[in-house]
């Protein structure tokens, strides 16, 4: 039995799969003690823990610790002259025209920042060696007096040569063995001292929080007879055994969105769809990610609460458009949608929980794509009169009926999603028409075909049980780790060093997997060089396949980089412009053969096209006939033509006129333009 448990802010989702058995469970999260929510889900799903061979977990524990600044006391130590690195940051403002602008608040206060005398040059030579005796005499007493639990170390140029950092860590450990040490060369061996220092400090801060959380959870699982493999989802789309997260908690900050992408990739992969754009639309926001040949695009850094984190994460673009997004009229008379959301409380007006503002969910109800008595298979009765009242001011402003106003709001939120998709596709030199659109989350499949229409995409693939694709991603994903190192090299004269640096990183990863007890001969590797024309400050990711690496030449690398530069920035440099390598990144992941099905018994319904009850939807400016189908009664081979709605227990899909949907043998709904 594979079990995935995702602890979100409001709900904890569980999915348990084993052959034809499928259990889906949603319980309230318990933010004060998140493991309680996770255990509640496990205790009520009706599965004995002894049967569970594989338990994958994702949570917002690390994220919340940072957002609420609840965690251990962290000291920060750096090179003399630079104790304020975390406060000086990068000097630019994110909101350019805001006079009340404030810098992101570091997780360390200024009184907890210390200096040591030392200096390493950019070429790695040590100009001033660290003196352990001075550390013992000056820093150690200060650390002792401050009552710190963690010390984060980031010394200048330690990405080239960590010698002084290692000596410092050693000196601290000798005197204060109980202190946890987070050293920058170990956490993020990349240049740019502020970003590395920030990553190191946040990593040191979340590590004990995650450790304690996982310990508690593991103990409780043990009490319930669990003896299987326990793993944790990371922001890079792969899992790691829980014990490995002891060194790597910062990699788990955005496990939720990453799990969604991996679930979608896995599920549509069964239908041989490998080039796709995922779009996860929930209550407040939509996450979009582009997947090339089964591999989601990665980016080398992210941030939390404005603080930079140098760790590879799935390149997910988030925009403020979801089912709960509020529709409003700005001072200039323009109709707008979001980014404010009614959230779960008070929620859309039609929920009847006290919300009065019009939302996208209200708009769906008014246009008939959501039915009052069928939302979440009847879990919440929707109040159409409340939705009408909420939309009345918008309709009166637009001088139309409420249905037109609602349809307009849906068009606007679709435009927000379209722009997010353009940011991951056209803005990165990729044509969205070469990809299938894969919607999930409660609201995604309702909008997908219309979004596809705007982008000229001809194929939408809706996974079954689209509302729990994220939980599926937990159990479907592989173990994955990345190793990154900065080495500033001239691209034309470094072929040998490129090959040997990659080989070293691969060996490091193999060692790590071996320590975790995984066979290393079946690992799949990916190699990326982050490069730029000399003088530039932003690097372009240049992936190299195993074959390309085997026959690497300076000319070949130059060509490859020029191609990627042109794709990203619409031009390439002169053929002789000097090119610089900045970062090397290697990813390693396990390869296993899993068969996880999201539909308990695919084909449990008739293959005829289901039970298509007739109804109406408001599209294209008028009420039109529409067939309503039950997702669970739509068997393999069933074909339906738009207008049609497919209602499921976790999500609703809309197939407009001009599109045809077929349920395939993998239970995916393949929706194609006629």
């Amino acid at each position, binding site marked *: 039995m594979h079990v995935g448990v995702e602890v979100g802010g409001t709900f904890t989702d569980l999915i348990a799969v084993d052959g034809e058995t499928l259990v889906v469970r949603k319980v309230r999260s318990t933010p004060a003690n998140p493991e309680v929510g996770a255990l509640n889900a496990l205790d009520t799903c009706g599965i004995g823990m002894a049967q569970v061979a594989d338990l994958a977990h994702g949570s917002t524990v690390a994220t919340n610790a940072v957002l609420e600044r609840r965690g251990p006391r962290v000291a920060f130590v750096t090179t*003399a*002259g*630079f*104790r*304020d*690195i975390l*406060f*000086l*940051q*990068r*000097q*630019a*403002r994110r*909101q*350019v*025209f805001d*006079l*009340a602008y*404030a*810098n992101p608040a570091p997780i360390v*206060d*200024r*009184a907890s920042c210390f200096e040591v005398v030392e200096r390493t040059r*950019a070429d790695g030579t040590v100009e001033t060696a660290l003196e352990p005796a001075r550390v013992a005499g000056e820093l150690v007493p200060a650390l002792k007096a401050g009552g710190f639990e963690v010390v984060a170390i980031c010394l*200048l*140029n330690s*990405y080239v040569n960590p010698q002084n950092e290692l000596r410092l860590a050693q000196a601290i450990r000798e005197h204060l063995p109980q202190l946890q040490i987070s050293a920058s060369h170990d956490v993020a061996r990349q*240049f*740019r*001292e*502020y*970003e590395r220092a920030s990553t190191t400090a946040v990593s040191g801060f979340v590590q004990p929080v995650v450790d304690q959380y996982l310990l508690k959870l593991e103990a409780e699982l043990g009490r319930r007879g669990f003896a299987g493999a326990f793993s944790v989802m990371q922001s890079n789309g792969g899992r790691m055994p829980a014990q490995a997260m002891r060194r790597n908690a910062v990699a788990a900050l955005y496990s939720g969105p990453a799990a969604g992408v991996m679930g979608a990739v896995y599920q549509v992969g069964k239908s041989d769809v490998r080039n796709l754009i995922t779009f996860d639309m929930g209550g407040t926001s939509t996450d979009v990610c582009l997947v090339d040949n089964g591999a989601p695009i990665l980016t080398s850094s992210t941030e939390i609460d404005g603080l930079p984190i140098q760790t590879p994460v799935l390149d997910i673009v988030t925009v403020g458009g979801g089912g709960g997004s509020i529709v409003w009229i*700005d*001072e*200039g*008379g*323009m*109709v*707008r949608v979001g980014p404010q959301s009614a959230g779960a409380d008070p929620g859309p007006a039609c929920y009847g929980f006290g919300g009065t503002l019009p939302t996208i969910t209200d708009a769906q109800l008014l246009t008939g794509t959501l039915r009052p008595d069928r939302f979440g298979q009847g879990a919440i009765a929707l109040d159409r009169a409340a939705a009408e009242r909420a939309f009345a001011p918008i309709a009166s*402003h*637009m001088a139309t009926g409420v249905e037109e106003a609602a349809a*307009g709001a849906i068009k*606007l939120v679709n*435009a927000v999603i379209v*722009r997010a998709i*353009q*940011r991951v596709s056209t803005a990165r030199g990729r044509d969205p028409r070469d990809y299938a659109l894969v919607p999930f989350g409660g609201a995604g499949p309702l909008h997908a075909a219309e979004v596809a229409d705007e982008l000229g995409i001809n194929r939408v693939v809706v996974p079954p049980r689209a509302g729990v694709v994220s939980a599926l991603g937990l159990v479907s994903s592989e173990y994955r780790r990345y190793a990154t190192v900065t080495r*500033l090299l001239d691209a034309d004269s470094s072929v040998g060093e490129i090959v040997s640096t990659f080989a070293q990183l691969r060996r490091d990863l193999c060692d790590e997997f071996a320590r975790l007890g995984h066979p290393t001969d079946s690992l799949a590797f990916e190699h990326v060089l982050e490069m730029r*024309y000399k*003088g*530039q*400050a*932003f690097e372009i990711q240049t992936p190299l396949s195993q074959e390309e690496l085997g026959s690497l030449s300076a000319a070949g690398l130059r060509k490859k980089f020029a191609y990627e*530069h042109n794709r*990203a*920035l*619409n*031009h390439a*440099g002169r053929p002789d*412009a000097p090119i610089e390598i900045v970062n090397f990144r290697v990813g390693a992941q396990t390869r296993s053969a899993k068969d996880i099905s999201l539909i308990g018994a695919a084909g449990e319904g008739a293959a005829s096209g289901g039970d298509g009850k007739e109804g109406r939807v408001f599209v294209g400016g008028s009420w039109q006939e529409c067939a309503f189908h039950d997702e669970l009664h739509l068997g393999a081979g069933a074909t339906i033509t738009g207008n049609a709605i497919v209602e499921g227990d976790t999500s609703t899909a809309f197939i407009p006129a001009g599109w045809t949907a077929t349920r395939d043998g993998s239970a995916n709904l393949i929706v194609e333009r006629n």
Partner: protein
Amino acid sequence: MLSSIDDAIIAQAIQAAAQEAGLKLVRAAHSTILREAQDGSAALLDRKRNVVALAELIPVQLGAMGVTLRACLAYYPVETLSPGDFLINNDPYEGGQHLQDIYIFTPIFVEGRIIGFGGSVAHHLDIGGGNAGLHMAATEIYQEGLRIPPSRYNIERDWNGGPFERLLFSNFRVPHETIGDINAQFAANDIATLRLVELCGKYGVDAVVACMDRMLDYTESRVRSSIRTLPDGVYNGHDAIDDDGAGSGPIDVRARITIAGDSIEVDMTGTHAQLDNNLNAPLASGLAAVLSSIKMVLTGPDVPFNEGAIRPVTIVAPEGTIVNPKFPAAVRARMTTANRVYGAVKDALSKASRDLATAQGFETTTVIVLAHRREGGFSICTDPQGGGFGATRLGDGCDAVDSPMTNCSNSPVESFDANFDFFRVVSARLVANFGHGRTRGGCGYARRYRILRDGVDFGMYSDRFARRPKGLDGGSDGGLASCTLYSRDGTTRAMPSKFHLKLNAGDEIEVILGGGAGLGDPATRDRRLVLRDLRDGLISQEVAREVYKLDVLALAG
């Protein structure tokens, strides 16, 4: 007014196109001034030469794009342009700001006719002139670099190894970087063009062109409704530059603002006569400062900038003053003056509405240029600096951040270490030189450079070495900036705010950037914040006790 849903969608797509072009301009840039300082912008302009959408990267580039294009089209009318042509202009006396800002425009052809322009501007590291990067001794524009009058060239014929590219190449000190940045500008124009053509394909040319018109009307109406919230009247604002760089000052900047209904006139009569140095600000810089002030103080960030924002604003800038200098005045350090125009307008607006008032911040652009000539060419580094923001009614002024009119990132110390062999940053720290108050000013900071080679050019212009940022409603004034030279022979010398010097290996120089002023009575400040600042070493026990009236003993007990 944008009321139809399609209009809203097209408008947002046009704005996104400008933003994408601007982002890629910065990402592709070679020189630190563009890539780190983001001193550039990209825009979509309509066929009538109005900026319709602008990548809002840096406030000082608000406004100038339309004026420089109009200057080009006065010589080369729209109907004479062919595909492949581009227009280029960096002339401060033809709509530009200073020679370093080169404006490039590419006509957008749809169905055989021009429906608009992709435009971009970038601050270039070096464009020739008397000194690498920054010539502080310039008294006329001829010494400041190459002037490119409004011109038309063709990319096939004149660029990519053609005569115009070669002309620029041979006049600039770091030509690979500069030409690389100009190529990034062409690419940005192409992206804006591509996106607009795509939109026309989807919605039709007529719908897109009509939407561009309505976008201007929309922004105009938003700005007008903001102005309408102010009471009619005449309000006088003032700010001043310390001195002219030779010790003579202050140099006054005045803004007399008249609010009449939904229009605003900014009259800068009474502002100091133009100077014999590079502090003069061409009209476009003053326009940007006025618009930035209005946008920051009055309209809020969600009003997209375009030419419509200019319609309700009239600017009077008497000729022969530092806000409208006569040819051939030098203009390189125009930011210093532009910052004071911003301050004077903000001062006047705060008299029109007390609620809008904030304490003064450091509000000074400090440009530091380090350059070294070696075998085979130059190595140049521009390191622009900010300071502390003024306190607002909502909270403390931001610590150590770039000044409102600009938005430059600093460069990582490790990036300097890897790229420059003739100097090094040896310390960077916060300085608690802020004004106290119920909300306090933002911290300034200090940067110390050590010179590693002989014969290094060190040029700098800054301000507020003598005149403090003013506190508000009982808050105290912010702290001053300063600069100290620690020579290798052991002597120490206080430097002025504007200078150029040759330095040698072993010399060190420290620049302290000023902090913002405070707002309100410090005795009413949240005690937890006073304690935090005390713990963080930003205020002393004595200041906590005497200024903030913190009962330290009671708290300890």
